[in-house]
């Protein structure tokens, strides 16, 4: 056995050279680690009818009460909606239908309505627009966030995105862009009619915008003075606005870019039919509902033309629950899905038990 052909010996005796060709000469045994041998401890779940169908059953049982809860909550929300566009010739606002931006004196109209049920909790007043494409790309991008954030150079040099609403009369527009330019400017006032006397209802205009928007994202330009007029010097008002931005409100903390109506408007809506928060009506005392059942009248200063693009305008009064405004969709969806799951769970469980029995009986002989 002296002369044995043995490749091993040779490989050992003369470890192959480190050639550029590579590849050759690796004679290391692979590590026996769980990872390298693809033997990591693993959980190997298999979805079987036995585990999934009861889960469906349980999910159904959970979803249905949630759905009912949501549905009931949503149904308890009081909501009242008035379309004040005035397309109908009988509508009091019909006269204002073809109003233009600068009509002076402004067209006003009054709509009377009756609330059949009292609104117990805080009431939120929305305005709603339809067929208004706030989500159009050209519209969405037509703003300058750094200008709105109080950046002084952007104030005087608005972004190109604002075109064609960035300059007017060779002065930079503040706030620039199509969104700002088309800000909703109807004024809505609510009166309770109590024995023919109109009692104005206090509409709170603060607290309607996101806190972060009001306090961080939107800022007035900075300077030595607190006088907004001076700070906005060198800029001009948006074309469609009757007043410059520093005259939006009399209160200093709600004027200029941090005007909450303005901030709300600047948050572009997702769909062409949308509503935006306009005013808050806070409950005054615990004895009386915020809005009693009875007659009311809505005074509208009709400035905002929507007829030209076939749009509609609405005023909505709504209470709010933990889940937001009235939205039947969620409740119905939960109830439907829950019922289907429950139904499937029950039916399939029955079927499975029949099959399952057969399976186990088949297993035994093996």
């Amino acid at each position, binding site marked *: 056995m*002296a*002369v044995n*052909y043995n490749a*091993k010996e*040779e490989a050992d005796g*003369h470890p*192959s*050279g480190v*050639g*550029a*060709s590579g590849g*050759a000469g690796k004679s290391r*045994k*692979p590590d026996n680690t769980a990872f*390298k*041998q*693809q033997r990591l*401890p*693993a959980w*190997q779940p298999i*979805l*079987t*009818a036995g585990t999934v169908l009861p889960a469906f059953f349980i999910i159904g049982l959970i*979803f249905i009460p949630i759905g009912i809860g*949501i549905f009931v909550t949503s149904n308890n929300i009081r909501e009242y909606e008035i379309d004040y566009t005035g397309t109908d010739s009988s509508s009091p606002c019909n006269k204002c239908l073809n109003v233009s931006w600068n009509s002076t004196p402004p067209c006003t109209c009054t709509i009377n309505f009756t609330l059949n049920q009292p609104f117990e909790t805080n009431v*939120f007043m929305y305005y709603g627009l339809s067929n208004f494409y*706030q*989500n*159009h*790309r*050209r*519209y969405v*991008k037509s*703003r300058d*966030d750094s200008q709105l*954030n109080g950046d002084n150079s952007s104030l005087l040099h608005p972004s190109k*995105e604002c075109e*064609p609403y960035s300059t007017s009369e060779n002065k930079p527009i503040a706030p620039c862009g199509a969104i700002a330019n088309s800000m909703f400017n109807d004024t809505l006032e609510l009166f309770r009619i109590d024995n023919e006397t109109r009692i104005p209802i206090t509409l709170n205009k603060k*607290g*309607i915008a*996101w806190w*972060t928007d009001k306090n*961080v994202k939107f800022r007035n330009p900075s300077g030595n003075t607190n006088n907004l007029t001076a700070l906005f010097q060198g800029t001009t008002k948006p074309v469609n606005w009757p007043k410059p931005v520093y005259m939006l409100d009399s209160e200093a903390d709600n004027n200029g870019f941090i005007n909450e109506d303005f901030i709300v408007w600047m*948050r*572009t*809506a*997702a*769909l062409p039919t949308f509503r935006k*928060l306009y005013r808050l009506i806070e409950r005054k005392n615990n004895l009386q509902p915020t809005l009693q059942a009875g007659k009311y009248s809505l005074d509208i200063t009709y400035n905002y033309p929507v007829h*030209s*693009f076939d749009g509609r305008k609405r005023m909505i009064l709504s209470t709010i629950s933990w*889940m937001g*405004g009235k*939205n039947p969709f*969620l409740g119905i*969806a939960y109830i439907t899905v829950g019922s289907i*799951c429950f139904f499937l769970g029950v039916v399939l469980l029955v079927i499975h038990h029949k*099959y399952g029995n057969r*399976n186990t009986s088949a297993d035994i002989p*093996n």
Partner: protein
Amino acid sequence: KLCAGEEKRVGTRTVFVGHRPVSETDAYVEQKFCDNRIVSSKYTVWNFLPKNLFEQFRRIANFYFLIIFLVQVIVDTPTSPVTSGLPLFFVIIVTAIKQGYEDWLRHRADKEVNKSSVFIVENAKQVKKHSEKIKVGDIVEVKADETFPCDLIFLASSNDDGICYVTTASLDGESNFKTHYAVRDTTGLQTDDDIDSLTATIECEQPQPDLYKFVGRINIYRSNQEPVARSLGPENLLLKGSTLKNTKKIYGVAVYTGMETKMALNYQGKSQKRSAVEKSINAFLVVYLCILVSKATVCTTLKYIWQSNPFNDEPWYNQKTIKERDTFKILRMFTDFLSFMVLFNFIIPVSMYVTVEMQKFLGSFFIAWDKEMYDEEIKEGALVNTSDLNEELGQVEYVFTDKTGTLTENSMKFIECCIDGHKYKDGISEVDGFSHTDGPLRYYGKAEKCREELFLRALCLCHTVQIKGGDNVDGLRVNQECWTYISSSPDEIALVKGAKKYGFTFLGHEADYMKVQNQKNEIEKYQLLHVLNFDPVRRRMSVIVKTSTGIFLLFCKGADSSIFPRVQQDEIQQTKVHVERNAMDGYRTLCVAFKELTQEDYKKINDQLSEAKMALQDREEKMARIFDDIEADMHLIGATAVEDRLQEHAAETIEALQTAGMKVWVLTGDKMETAKSTCYASRLFQTNTELLELTTKTMGDSDRKEERLHELLLEYHKKLLQDFPKNSGKLKRSWTVSQEYGLIIDGSTLSLILNPSQDSSSSNYKSIFLQICLKCTSVLCCRMAPLQKAQIVRMVKNTKGNPITLSIGDGANDVSMILEAHVGIGIKGKEGRQAARNSDYAVPKFKHLRKLLLAHGHLYYVRIAHLVQYFFYKNLCFILPQFLYQFFCGFSQQPLYDAAYLTMYNICFTSLPILAYSLLEQHINIETLTSDPRLYMKISDNAMLQWKPFLYWTFLGSFEGLVFFFGVYFLFQNSSLEHNGKVFGNWTFGTIVFTVLVFTVTLKLALDTRFWTWMNHFVIWGSLAFYVFFSFFWGGIIWPFLKQQRMYFVFAHMVTSVSTWLAIVLLIFISLSPEILLVVFKNKVQRRKKLSNRKASDSLSSRRSVRPLLLRTFSDESNV
């Protein structure tokens, strides 16, 4: 590449040794050869950027994304160029860094080689130089254990006999020592002064990559004499990259340098093989491209219909810029179309290519790491040369295997021999108790003593075996224990060892002499005059030796088919019986013949051979022709039988492969009988397999060969056709066919079919032959030349349906078929490393094929198929809501998601879970996969990437996209979703959709994961957590570099809304529930199938266990 232009390869080159002119009259002309700088790197610092970018953008996918990016830059598009630019540049930069790093490594390696110091003899002095400075014609000195800096012609060594030993381990992996010879006239030039006095020119062929071929001529000029011309062959050429061993130093003259060395010429990569999965990906890409274009077209059309209403086109609140108004409508439409394309372009995922490549690259490590594919004997595991084909391993339909060294061990054992028809056999067990000189022989009748000795001398002389001593080669050692025989062919070693058993010991070479110790312990010396090595075409080798008494002898050893026609016919019969019986037993047989040459004969031959050796071109062919002439009318002395045992588990592996639905073909150069018995032993043929033979035997006479062949073909065809229609209802690759057929064909018949003499109706017969082949369960092709092997593979590869083929082999003769097949597998065998080097994967043993295909191949296929489908799916449900949103935003290309989400979706939020899945998933345990080969059939025919599963995934994606969008749409019927009555805008809308999307898509993957390791947990839950974290972070800061702060606190507000939470949970559940239900039902059906299968397999295994018994009886019979 640099200097070795194709046109320069023709013709010869003349090298002046030491740059010395041959005569004073001829002016020495400095020739231009390339320097010895090795440049394996692709790039330099200067051209890296343009060249690398160019190469990357040549890939169609990268180019597509570049176009999209450019469109975004040029045209006013909805998403900023960053969204598609960032992922693209991420991909490009990562690839560039990887390639740059690899190139840097190559630069470093090059530098190391180029700057290494060498000694050059100039004016009788040694000059130390950098390796890169070597010029063609320089005389280089190389010391022991140094590698040669360039291709050298060996001039002289420190040994007087002009021999040096070399290993080429880093060239072709063969670690044995190879002997190289210096030309006799220069062997004496052993000092610097001597070598400097040499005036010579070398004419040789232009550089060519074949490592084993070289022809040249050296003309040595001596003062006032005619130049002496000597031929140069591969044995005179020392290749760059090989290492000098056992020799103190050598002198050589550089002939090929730098990029013209054979090593550099071999460096070029192999042609890329593309996998079937990639073809599927491309098909799906086309579908998605169509979806993309049609979506864009639909949107553009609808946009203009919608805009035909002027108050939609340009309401007072949203007026166009002057520029927009002025552009032509056609141009505007075109821009809009492009914008939509850009908006939806994410449907074709950039990151898929990166992920697929990462998966392949990282995944291939698992093959190399596999401990079960590690072989203790050779201390090596599997080797992955290309990671592109991992999944192809799961799709193999045809396996072409070599026999020797692949199915068998190729570790030869001398079993018996026959001399003049007398059988000589010894059992190792009987060795004890016999004296060494007489040999432990058991004679079955005895041949004449002189014939016996002649036979044994022939065995001792007719070979190319060398002896590797314990420490030094020269000098006889009494202690023979530390010797090892080295040869490129294990057969020869077995034969030499066999001869030793009978008392004749080969003691090695001494200069031109071969020393043999005979039975009487005397040392006989034979002068070795000429050797013509074994080659697979001639199938024999010959040596011419001169005995000490001055008799010229020719010994020839080879396959019976090549020896029998060349010996006296009356001698054949008695030996033939033995040869055939040995072949039946599966032994490899060789016949030995000799011829005595007269002085005149030898002289004539010697002249012819010397002349042929001088030839620069086709030298081997010329020599072969001369030998052909001499090798006639020889005397047959006897035959040898060498056993080549089956590799362990070879039979089980073949059986498993067949059960897995693969068809196994054996392509061998061996004799039919040997191959057939191996096939039976390896259970390729069962006892009940009906064999159809198409061999020279069945063909009969040479005149009617072709007609007979055609008759046979038609007959077999008819037979198979009759039998098969009955089974047509069953699965195509069913493993239970009532009658199994096996086909045996040999090389000459095959060439008759493939290259017929008259071309009439030949293609018809070819197709008939092919049909026969495809219907047989197993095919054995014997007597195959290497090229024929490749021909067969190509033939099957190009049949209808383009089945995936796999070739496995171990020798140089298998390289062609390994390169030809879809997947080439090399066995790290004993016949050198060429096969392993040229293969896509190399494994130590045939049995490892089982795990490689059944487990690794299966898993990789499932993983990558799922990866691809999942990628398309997740991008479809990503983009579909964006498409639907266009219907609600006036087709204005308003993106639904924020740019950050668009960008990050594929690279951060959803990439890692699928990557982890595609690396770690084991939907079925590896053990189960290996032990139950039938599982392999489940994924055959690219099952997971057919249109049906693709449509299923597409449907799923569309369904989920619809659920996401319309769910949130209905939720947003009242956008005041917070408890304080404040309203959400469009970005919140998109964020809710996106959140549902990310969760659904990730959880869908979680549902599909059957193998949850900690890594899967980490990446799946980690990705979701990262998404949430990122969203908070992204919305938490006013980013100074952003034009718009769209996402500022959007996510934070979203999560404060209870309604949103409820909606997200609901939508995720709705999206996933159909999938869950479907999986449950599938599992149920599967389980029932499995139950019935288990019963079937029980009966099968009982049947299977019978088989070895049957086999045993068969082989017992054949032994008698």
